[in-house]
Structure formats: C-alpha cells, structure tokens
C-alpha cells in the first residue's frame, strides 16, 4: 500500500501532525506497509506446540508474540489450512490480543463483550475463561452477528450467549458483570495499514460524532459492572476525542471509577496523553509493526465505608 501526497487526506495529516509531533513521519511511513500477520492459538481446541508443528509442516516461518503466550507471528497466508477451519487458531492482529489479556477474565465469571463482532476478542475471552462462567457477546448489527456466531462455533466456544441489543440501552443489566470489554466502533486509524479508505474517509466531524457515541456506550457499560468489577475500554484509533477524552468522561461521571495500570512485556507503547489518563496504553501502528490501539483498564471501586 502506498500513500502518495495526492492521496493523503490533508485534514487527517494536519490533525495527526499536531497530535503526534515528532512521531508523525514514522506513523505515516508505517501506513505504507501491511502489518505483520499473526495468529492466536485457540487453547479451547489445541496447544501452541501443536499449531507450531502445523506451521513447521507447511513450511511457514513463525515466531512468538512476546506479550501473548498464545500469539504467533506468521510470514504467509494461513487462512486455507484445514486447522484454521477446524478452529485451532484465529487470524488476529497481534496488538489486539493485548486487549482481552488486559481484562484478565477468570473461569466462572460473568463477562460482557458489548461490541463483540467479528469475535476475535470474544473467542479469546472464552479461551481465557476455559469455557466456564458466562460470556455475553453483544452486537447490534445483524450482518456482523453472522461473523460472530461463525467464529464462536469454529472456536468451540460453549459458554457464550449472543445478543443483538443497542449497547447504549444495556442498563437492564445494572451491576451484573464481573468484567466488561468495551471495544467501541471508532475511526479505525489503527487499521489504516490494511485499509486505505480509513485515511481517505477520516474527518474531524466523524471523530466528534463517534466520540459522543463512545461516551454513551462507556457509561452504559460501566453501569453494568459489579462492585470491584473491571472494564477495559479500547479503540483501534488515535484521536484524543475517541480515547483519552472518553476515559476522562467516565472518570468524571462515575466517582467510583479508578484507572489501573496495564503492562505487557515486549509490547511497545506509550502512556495516555493527559494527566488523568497516564495509565492508559497508547499503541501506534509503527511501534510493533502491527495495528494501532488504545487500551484503558477501569475498576469500579467498592464504596468507602465510614468507621
């Protein structure tokens, strides 16, 4: 993929030059290339060693993704291997594996994935839960539910329920979930390496509209958290409005919300760009030769009791 000056969206360029400062050129440079391909081994069906053997037999060069023990970099197409259709692995952006890991779901817990399609993170959550507990995977768009169900079935997930609800109206589940993943619809700049339309269609107006939706979804999701529950808010984009400003909105509106630090070995990232969001992870596409992401981990703290 090549972005020439003519193709480049000037509004996108000037916004990101201001946002990223000295990193802008590296960021734009990274959009010229395809991200490194990766797979996540589905531990509900097999083991990392077994999939490594498959890759070796098919002469596919591979290596470990440092921050995810089930993640493997691969150097060629693995879509049409029989093991893929049998659900032994999921083709997934390596950085996005960190999102489900940040949530740390445990077997037996109640977990909500509010915007779940196409299911890369939902199937990862189910694997981390060892198919125990309850995973509610919600998706509002009926067409995207088909992809979600396909992946849930292929990966052998048996503890999931799929629903089709408007995420903003999830208040019927007030304080019901131990953990919530909110991977919201966003302007997708972190995926611009694989989809050039992202840059072409980007506008500040679109970002502002998405930010308003993300804030509504974030408060609705947070309301579903049990006391001491954890919510991970993530996007695959770069803008301040869709990332730090949404987290600040949660912290402002929900007095019992506390941001928690996230750390992954081998994952290059930087901190959130504002004082209140310093503990968030901001990952640009050129950091890991993979997608760009923003990840925030928020705990709903128990109320402080008077002695």
């Amino acid at each position, binding site marked *: 993929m090549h972005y020439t000056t003519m193709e480049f969206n000037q509004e996108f360029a000037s916004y990101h030059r201001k946002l990223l400062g000295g990193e802008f050129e590296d960021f734009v440079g990274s959009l010229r290339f395809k991200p490194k391909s990766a797979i996540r081994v589905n531990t509900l*069906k*097999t083991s990392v060693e*077994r999939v490594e053997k498959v890759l070796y037999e098919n002469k596919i060069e591979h290596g470990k993704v440092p921050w995810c023990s089930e993640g493997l970099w691969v150097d060629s197409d693995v879509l*049409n*291997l*029989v*093991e*893929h*259709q*049998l*659900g032994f692995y999921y083709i997934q952006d390596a950085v996005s594996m960190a999102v489900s890991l940040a949530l740390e779901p445990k077997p*037996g817990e*109640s977990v909500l994935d509010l915007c779940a399609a196409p299911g890369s993170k939902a199937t990862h959550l189910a694997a981390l839960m060892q*198919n*125990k*507990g*309850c*995973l*509610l995977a919600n998706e509002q768009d009926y067409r995207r*539910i088909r992809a979600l*169900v*396909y992946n*849930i*079935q*292929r990966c*052998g*997930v*048996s*503890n*999931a*329920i*799929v*629903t*089709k*609800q408007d995420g903003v109206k999830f208040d*019927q*589940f007030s304080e*019901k979930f131990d953990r919530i993943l909110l991977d919201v619809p966003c302007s997708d700049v972190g995926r611009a390496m694989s989809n050039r339309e992202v840059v072409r269609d980007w506008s500040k107006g679109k970002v502002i509209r998405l930010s308003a939706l993300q804030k509504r979804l974030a408060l609705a999701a947070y309301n579903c958290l049990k006391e001491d529950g954890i919510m991970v808010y993530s996007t695959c984009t770069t803008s301040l409005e869709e990332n730090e400003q949404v987290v600040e909105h949660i912290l402002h509106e929900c007095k019992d919300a506390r941001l928690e630090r996230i750390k992954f070995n081998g994952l290059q990232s930087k901190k959130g760009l504002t004082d209140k969001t310093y503990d968030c992870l901001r990952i640009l596409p050129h950091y890991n030769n993979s997608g760009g992401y923003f990840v925030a981990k928020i705990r709903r703290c128990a109320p402080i009791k008077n002695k």
Partner: protein
Amino acid sequence: MRSKELKVRIGIRIKMRKELNSKDVEELAVKIESQFGFRIDEKLKYFVKEEKEGEKIFIFSGNRIPNIQVEWIGLHFGTLIQNEFQPSIDGAFLMQTANKKILQASKKEIEELMKGSVIDYSGGLTGFVIARHKDLACVGIVKEGKVGSLTPKSRLI
C-alpha cells in the same frame, strides 16, 4: 421462554430454542451413545431448536442465562434428523472418545471432506460418520461405497 410448545421431548417438533429437561437430556444421551459410543456430559445444559433440516442441539457450559432475547446460545453440537444424530464439525471434535461410526481417515481424506469432496470407502459403516485423523475430526455420510462431505459451506477450505 414463552410458548405453550415448550414441553419438549426429543423427536417432538418445536419452534424455538428450549432448554432440555433432565429426562430429555437422558434420552439424548442414550441416542448418541447407541449411535457413536459416546456419553454426553449430562451436567451441561442442552438446548434444542427446530429448523428445516431437523432439531439442532446446542451445548451450553455457562453458569447462568440472563433474562434477555438471545440470538445464539452455546455451541451447535449436532442435529437430530429423522431420529439420527448428525454431529456438527465442532460436536465431532468434542466426541474424541466416541468409538462407533468412526472412520479412521488420512489427513488428505480429512482435507478432501473439508473441501466438500467425496471420498471412496469400502468398510461396513453406514449413515453419519465421524472422520478422524489424530486430533482432526469432521463429519460425513456413507452411501454406496462413498463418504459424502457434510462440511457446511461456511467451513469449506
């Protein structure tokens, strides 16, 4: 769950997904065991949904079901078609200890079935079979010296 048709028995047609009671689960367990020599885990929850091709059976290993309209629950384990159980690909994967109607296949034959192709067969099995090669499993149907692929379109390689 809201219909009068919810008093479900295996073999009785219903119109919506319904949890099987312990008697129905036992009946399902006996059927699958007699056909494939595999005993299902009766501690899990089982749901049934009537579709054109038969009654789809779903396994749910979760510990609670929220009160909400559901689009999909658990894992499609297989389908009861005219009183015969046809495992899904992922149901066949779960039935690793099954010892009846197992076709020991080569990896190439598994790949052919996953491509939707027919493979030659000269053994004595009939009807729905689980084709297995080590930990790879898929599903076929034996007819007239051939094994037909039962791989759904969406899962073809």
